[in-house]
């Protein structure tokens, strides 16, 4: 949405960084984990601490690490002392919304370069414990995130007529992709559809291999304004111009809610494509990093986001369209199915999209990626954040600015 019909100050990703993700990063403290991603992002952006005007930090529930607002006690380690610090928390979408809040800092015209970081150190506690606290008056029917999402996956399978191995195909694609990503938690270069299908049904219809791991990890990005971005480009460093950002929230339950394709996700995508000047997302997006913690969410989100018609998402999977060599590569980094440091998972999607258009995605680079999509969601599929980044500035915004300049 752009109610003012006013182009924001242009913003671009100057650099990204992430940790190595694994179940237990026993070698670092919480601050040490964050700094591993931050230092990598600062190096990638060729930025020093004096260049950073503000720090924006996100993570999912504080009960995971047992510290209330841990960014306060980490202020020094984050390089934030003496600077503005903003802590974002929007459930599982937080990594994405943290990147968007950071973008707004720059687009406001108030900040030249900002550092955004998001993280989770799940090994400090037990996510299942934190998410399944026996709250008084509630019935003990929950069974964690898998228990929540499995019924909706079943609805999707039943209503779309998708072949039952669709989810397994997504897993094989993402895990094999993750095997080429040295940062990924899981490396399964030889996994097959048959293996996945033979695996244990954990939350029927979701099999063991169709779920994401629990990871410790962090992700960071440095975002700059057009002056900073042009400086980087002049120095021969590619940047990822931010073409559009979008966030939407809806209630987790209301009568008539479509749980397979929530309205908030459709609204967020529609606003995003409009701001980016994109009419046909499948044709115009070169690579997509979509938040897929359970395999079946790839076809579900493809439909929700408008990459295809409702009911057709599984066909893209079946055709191999979302494979690294397909016409819409999805999650060439391995995605959430290969690494899931919850609070950072959304920013990883945003950062991987940026890496693709900067041409710095290493072994999982999609050749010729000029425009990429990053996505995150959270809660009961009710919080959505997404962005589009490109190798060049957004033409739609540039032409709007030109028109306005002429009018002045």
């Amino acid at each position, binding site marked *: *949405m*752009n*109610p*003012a019909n*006013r182009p*924001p*100050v242009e913003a671009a990703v100057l650099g990204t960084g992430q940790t190595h993700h694994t179940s237990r990063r026993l070698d670092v403290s919480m601050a040490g984990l964050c700094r591993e991603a931050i230092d990598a992002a600062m190096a990638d952006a060729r930025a020093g601490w004096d260049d950073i*005007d503000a720090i924006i930090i996100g993570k*999912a*529930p*504080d*009960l995971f*690490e*047992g*510290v*209330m*607002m841990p960014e*306060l*006690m*980490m*202020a*020094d380690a984050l390089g*934030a*002392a*003496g600077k*503005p*610090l*903003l*802590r*974002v*928390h*929007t*459930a599982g979408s937080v990594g994405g919304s943290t990147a968007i*809040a950071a*973008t*707004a800092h720059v*687009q*406001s*015209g*108030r*900040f*030249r370069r900002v550092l955004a970081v998001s993280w989770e150190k799940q090994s400090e506690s037990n996510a299942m414990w*934190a*998410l399944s*606290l026996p*709250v008084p008056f509630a019935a003990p029917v929950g069974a964690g995130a898998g228990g929540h999402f499995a019924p909706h996956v079943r609805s999707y399978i039943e209503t779309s007529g998708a072949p039952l191995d669709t989810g397994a195909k997504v897993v094989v694609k993402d895990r094999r992709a993750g095997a080429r990503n040295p940062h990924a938690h899981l490396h399964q270069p030889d996994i097959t559809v048959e293996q996945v299908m033979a695996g244990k049904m954990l939350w029927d219809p979701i099999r063991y291999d169709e779920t994401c791991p629990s990871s410790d990890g962090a992700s960071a990005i440095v975002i700059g*304004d057009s002056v900073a971005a042009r400086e980087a480009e002049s120095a021969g460093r590619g940047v990822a111009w931010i073409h559009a950002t979008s*966030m*939407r*929230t*809806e*209630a*987790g339950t*209301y009568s008539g809610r479509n749980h397979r394709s929530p*309205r*908030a996700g459709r*609204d*967020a995508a529609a606003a995003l494509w409009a701001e980016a000047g994109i009419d046909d997302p499948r044709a115009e997006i070169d690579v997509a990093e979509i938040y897929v913690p359970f395999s079946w969410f790839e076809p579900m989100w493809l439909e929700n986001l408008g990459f295809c018609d409702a009911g057709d998402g599984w066909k893209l999977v079946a055709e191999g369209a979302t494979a690294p060599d397909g016409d819409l590569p999805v999650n060439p980094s391995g995605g959430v199915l290969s690494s899931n440091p919850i609070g950072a998972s959304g920013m990883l999607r945003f950062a991987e999209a940026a890496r693709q258009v900067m041409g710095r995605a290493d072994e999982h680079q999609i050749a010729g990626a000029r425009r990429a999509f990053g996505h995150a969601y959270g*809660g009961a599929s*009710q919080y959505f954040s997404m962005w589009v980044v490109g190798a060049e500035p957004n033409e739609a915004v540039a032409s709007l600015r030109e028109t306005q300049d002429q009018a002045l």
Partner: protein
Amino acid sequence: MTTTTPARDVAIVAFAHAAHSEASPGTTNGVEMLAPVFAECYEQSGLDRREIDFWCSGSSDYLAGRAFSFISAIEAIGATPSIQESHVEGDAAWALFEAWLTILSGHADTALVYGFGKASASADLDATMAAQLDPYTQSPLGPGRHQLAALQARAGLDAGMWSTDDLARIAARTHGIELAEVAAARAEADPLTAFDCPPVTDGACAVILAAGDRAKEIRTTPAWIAGLGQAIDSAELGARDLTASPSVREAARQATGGAELGPIDLAELHTPYSHQEIIVRRELGLGDNVRITPSGGSLAADPMFSAGLERIGYAAKAIYDGGARRTLGHASAGPLLQHNLVALLEGRG
């Protein structure tokens, strides 16, 4: 730091908060307090919830004792169809900061910012707040929240920065009592008396922001945001000069773009302890002619995670009520004034 003048003017056009309560009747999700507060803000602004472009809230899961308590709070909105929304873990004054940037960036013309906290739900608020300290070397010692503040108060006494009389005068003014009564009070955390420490308060607060002409349509005298800045200090308590709060100064510097603060009619300071008012006044350079926290502030009622936003709300109200032309709202977060935000508001025309 770039010092570009914001391309858009943004104003506060509505403000309300739940009447302060020692024990509110509703859930820790804040919904029961927020829905009537939103209704009052819609009434004041004439805006319908569908005319709010962006929503942003501040709260803490730790007061609720469970993960994701802020998600339930959106039931107070009626978020169907979907809304553009974000949330900060912390005082809602920082949600206002995010909302302001979102409007400046052109992604919204109006925003409703809210915060909530049910502190009375914590049977041991000291244990809850100790979770905010360094979890390796400080939280395990179980320091009480007033005791921690007392270390700061004594540092100032020892340094000759303030006297117990200075603290007593602030407490007496805030509580509307005689100095003698403060002087006779028992120590809560030596050298602080109960009158120097915040009470346990449940609360919720909301303000509506609007850009440019939208603000002028809503209020004859909107409280324009002339500047907004925030900064954090080191977490290393034992290395900090506890009698100072450099981040207050830095927040003000950002709000003014480095210029002089200029004349201020009224300042609403978020200082839960008497001595903290002295620190913040000093860092801001507020003279004796500035009315300080006429609302009573957190020393009178401390609705955690909305108290900072409430200060900015009262600073705005003073403008659109016509009682002041230029005001300052301050918010603080973290132990011992670690994280600070300064909002400069002004009436125009």
